[in-house]
């Protein structure tokens, strides 16, 4: 039930109550009026005055009762209104809390999603960095190996020239064939039998 429906229901109740009170007062006044007529015809002036006083008092009491009922109605209406207001406020607070809670949950969820996504992105970035680093290292190793192989090939292909040049520079050209005679002829003499065998067995 909504707040407006509850307020209308209370208003109707109080209107009915006021109508009842008004009807009762109307009946009382009619009776008093008849008594007054009867007294005017049969009673003495003292009684007539007393009746008038009673009428005034009754009117005053009726007005007081009406005022009191009005005040009670207003008070009740006020209380009901405050209660409804409190209920509505509570409902609003609850709704607001629910909304805030829902928004908070959604925010927390989105925050968690963002954290997860951020973590994933960070891991992906780290993986890419590691991959790029590995690739760069591999390329560096390939380049180093290529240079090394090229150096080896170059040195191997010209090793004799390098050694000859190195020795010639070291010995400053002092190796002369004449200086090698003893060594050469010593070797020839030691292997003379093999040479004789080859020469004498040659086709001639």
């Amino acid at each position, binding site marked *: 039930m909504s707040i407006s429906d509850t307020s209308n229901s209370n208003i109707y109740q109080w209107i009915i109550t006021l109508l009842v009170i008004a009807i009762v007062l109307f009946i009382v006044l009619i009776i008093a009026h008849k008594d007054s007529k009867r007294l005017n015809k049969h009673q003495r002036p003292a009684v007539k005055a007393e009746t008038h006083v009673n009428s005034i008092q009754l009117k005053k009491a009726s007005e007081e009762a009406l005022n009191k009922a009005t005040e009670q109605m207003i008070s009740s209406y006020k209380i009901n209104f405050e209660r409804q207001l409190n209920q509505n406020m509570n409902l609003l607070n609850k709704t607001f809390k629910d909304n805030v809670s829902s928004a908070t949950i959604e925010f927390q969820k989105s925050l968690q999603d963002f954290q997860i996504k951020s973590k994933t992105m960070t891991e992906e970035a780290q993986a890419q960095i590691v991959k790029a680093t590995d690739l760069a290292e591999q390329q560096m190793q390939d380049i180093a190996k290529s240079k*090394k192989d090229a*150096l*080896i090939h170059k*040195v*191997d292909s010209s*090793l*004799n*020239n390098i*050694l*000859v040049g190195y*020795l010639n520079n070291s010995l400053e050209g002092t*190796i*002369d*064939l*004449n200086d*090698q*005679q003893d*060594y*050469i*002829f010593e*070797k*020839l003499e030691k*292997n*003379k039998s*093999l*040479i*004789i*065998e*080859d*020469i*004498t*067995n*040659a*086709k*001639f």
Partner: protein
Amino acid sequence: MPNFKLKGLPKQVANSAQIYQIISYIDNSYSNKRSIEASNRAGVKSHIEKIELPEIMQHFFGEKISWEDLGNLKQELVEIIKTAPVVTLTLSSIPSSSLRTKFVAWFRAISPIVLVEIIVDESIMGGVIVKTERRKLDFSISSVLPLGKKSFKEIIDNV
């Protein structure tokens, strides 16, 4: 029958190239001789006034060698080129004339007609490589060096 018989090659003649040079001298001499003889028969004065044996011939074979001997010599030289054993010496540099003769003499002591070819390869750094028709005897300095290609590669690999 020819009187001349080659007992052996002189040690100044080491290899087949020099033998071919001698054969060329002989052929030129014969050509000159025939030219002079033809001119004489025609009564024309030849532009070649005198036939002189190449000096090397006289140096090697003496003054008494005749034209017939030259013909025989050519045949024997051709035969030597075809059949003589050949020894190839690889040296690190060009030998002097005396050392060259010494090498040839050493081998001619084994065989009087052996041909000694000498080639130069600086990469052997010293010593000699003797190559016959049957084997190769490597007495070069490079063959006894401890540093070879393989060991150099191993050194590079450990850098």
